[in-house]
């Protein structure tokens, strides 16, 4: 059982880091609570694998501390940290049977066979591996192999956290959801902290109760899937979560109006006041494609747009349009009325988010 705390943690692969860009992970504090299902989500190169290796002990952080239940473990190697890890490509000992694979970590700790056997069978049963137990581990399919590598973590009674590094990469698309279900089931059954690293929003939000979105060596938001969608704390989260991501408008406040370039935006008083109070030159309004409505005739608070194209995506349509020369996307429900070349768009007021210097600023909606 473990609560994992990262205190003042930073890591640089360079021996003498001088600027921000030398750091793979920039100064951060974070707590992973005991028993939580977490995801670490971000694009390639954001530092998420570095962070995972620091937690598992394969890498020693250059600054700050890693605490397991309050104890500093910076220098402890992985084998002394009571963690298990599932890698991108299944790691199995292919000259052993599936049974021996599962028993391997127990036998390495000199567990007596009469204790090994029931534990291996219990875990095999949970993972639906029982029929394969006597088979050589090189014969199963990729998803079975990945379950075997997961099983090696679960058999150990002392395991306090399981780390997953993009574990579904090699799994056939049609089988992925079954493995996701298995993962959820296991998390709900065992009281183990699980951290799942991925670049895929679906993997992350399906598995995790809370997601840490990483960008450029920092966790820019730590929240539930719903929070990431509804209240992205950073412009990157808005862009990265959702397909397509959030639309952003760089705005300024001039003569009592919110201006998008030369175009005054019809936003409500609260938004206007917040923009005026922002006090920065980097002010953006964010609006998700889901919250833009489009019609053929002007409506209250609408802006005229030029339609670029309309893609029918089956369950919904995606409208690309330009406003003030910038490209925007709006998501229209299935069966939406056709849209002409020149149309009008309304940005739903209560779904407009304000970003000052890339971070979310609350708007006092009344």
């Amino acid at each position: 059982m473990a609560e994992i705390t990262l205190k003042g943690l930073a890591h640089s692969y360079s021996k003498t880091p001088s600027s921000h860009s030398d750091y793979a992970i920039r100064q951060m504090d974070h707590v992973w609570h005991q028993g939580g299902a977490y995801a670490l989500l971000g694009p390639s190169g954001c530092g998420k694998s570095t962070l995972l290796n620091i937690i598992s002990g394969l890498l020693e952080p250059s600054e700050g501390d890693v605490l397991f239940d309050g104890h500093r473990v910076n220098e402890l190697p992985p084998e002394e940290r009571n963690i298990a890890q599932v890698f991108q490509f299944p790691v199995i000992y292919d000259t052993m049977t599936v049974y021996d694979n599962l028993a391997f970590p127990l036998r390495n700790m000199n567990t007596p066979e009469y204790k090994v056997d029931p534990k291996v069978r219990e875990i095999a049963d949970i993972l639906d591996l029982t029929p394969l137990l006597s088979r050589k581990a090189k014969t199963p399919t990729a998803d079975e192999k990945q379950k075997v590598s997961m099983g090696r973590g679960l058999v150990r009674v002392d395991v306090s956290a399981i780390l997953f590094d993009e574990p579904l990469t090699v799994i056939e698309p049609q089988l992925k959801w079954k493995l996701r279900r298995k993962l959820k089931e296991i998390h709900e059954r065992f009281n183990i902290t699980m951290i799942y690293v991925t670049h895929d929003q679906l993997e992350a939000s399906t598995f995790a109760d809370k997601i840490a979105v990483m960008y450029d060596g920092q966790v820019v938001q730590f929240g539930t899937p719903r929070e990431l969608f509804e209240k992205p704390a950073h412009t990157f989260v808005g862009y990265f979560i959702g397909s397509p991501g959030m639309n952003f408008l760089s705005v300024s406040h001039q003569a009592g109006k919110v201006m998008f370039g030369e175009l005054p935006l019809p936003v409500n008083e609260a938004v206007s006041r917040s923009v005026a109070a922002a006090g920065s030159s980097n002010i953006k309004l964010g609006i998700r494609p889901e919250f833009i409505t489009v019609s053929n005739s002007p409506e209250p608070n609408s802006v005229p747009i030029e339609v670029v194209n309309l893609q029918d995506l089956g369950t919904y349509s995606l409208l690309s349009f330009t406003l003030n020369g910038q490209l925007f996307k709006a998501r229209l429900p299935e069966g939406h009325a056709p849209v002409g070349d020149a149309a009008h768009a309304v940005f739903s007021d209560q779904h407009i988010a304000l970003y000052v210097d890339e971070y979310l600023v609350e708007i006092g909606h009344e």
Partner: protein
Amino acid sequence: MSLHLQNIDHVVGGQSHISGVNLELEPGSFNVLLGRTLAGKTTLMRLMAGLEQPTRGRIFMDGKDVTGVSVRKRNVSMVYQQFINYPSMTVRDNIASPLKLANTPQQEIDRRVGSIAEMLHIEHLLDRYPQELSGGQQQRTAMGRALVKDADLILFDEPLVNLDYKLREELRDELRELFKARNCIAVYATTEPNEALALGGNTAVLHEGKLLQYGPTEQVYREPNGRHSAEMFSEPPINIVPGKLTATEITFDQSLHFPCDPGLQRLTPGDYDFGVRASHITLKPQSADDLELPVLVDVAEISGSETFLHVRHERFPLVLHLAGIHEFHVNDAINVYFPTHQLYAFDKQGSTVHIPSSAQGSVAHG
């Protein structure tokens, strides 16, 4: 240029990879080859390119028989899953390589490489080497090489599959735009229905080496000609529920029966497979005659702004595609609402015998 495949068979070592494919591609058309792994997409593309010879059948380009003509004389280019570039050449030389082989004057080469690089947003990378680039940039370079020579036929074999989903979104959009101004035939293989829908154009659905259906993408999506085609062309796959049709009713079992749509009444009573799209089953009733089904949750897959809910009724599993974020636990008991008016019906041979009126309507509009 037009491309016509006539009765193509391809047999390798006694195993049939392609059988009886007839396909006519219009000049300047964008065509998606949709099918699962090993459906024969790559083989079909290699046949089109002339990298393989068909065992039986003929291939015509512009009405001229090119069946035995080698790939060198066909003016085709191809982009692969892996990012294939010449490692010892700069991006500029990589893109220019097909033109150099054709002895194009240097001025012309510079002009065309410049404009292609600009279209692909890699103009600032021209003097770098492929290994210094990110995956997305490498694939852009490979595309540049394919696009720079005025090929009659450009083949894309799952070009985006190895990229992050955000990059995939961007490149997909750009690709569609690139082909608007061209007069060559583009063929794009993918396993993902959503990619086919996003790309638009025409879609050919391939299954076990056979061509199931070919037509405008939206039409193939809304009016699949059979069960396989419908399953292949929706993500998550269309739900299939076996049932019995009587003169006035559809029965799933003794307790599950409901009056059938007038359109279905013209069918001969008997056993059918009924198809319902994942996005048409809901958590709240949409109309008074929706069928209420008690189900257990398998897993809720959340993808940014939407949820794929896998549930099981005691007689059949179902998948729901819901807008917004819905969190559930494994084995939660809930009710879902099954639309009785939006059913596709397939006979036991797998052919479509009924298409819901809602789907027919959309195509007429689109």
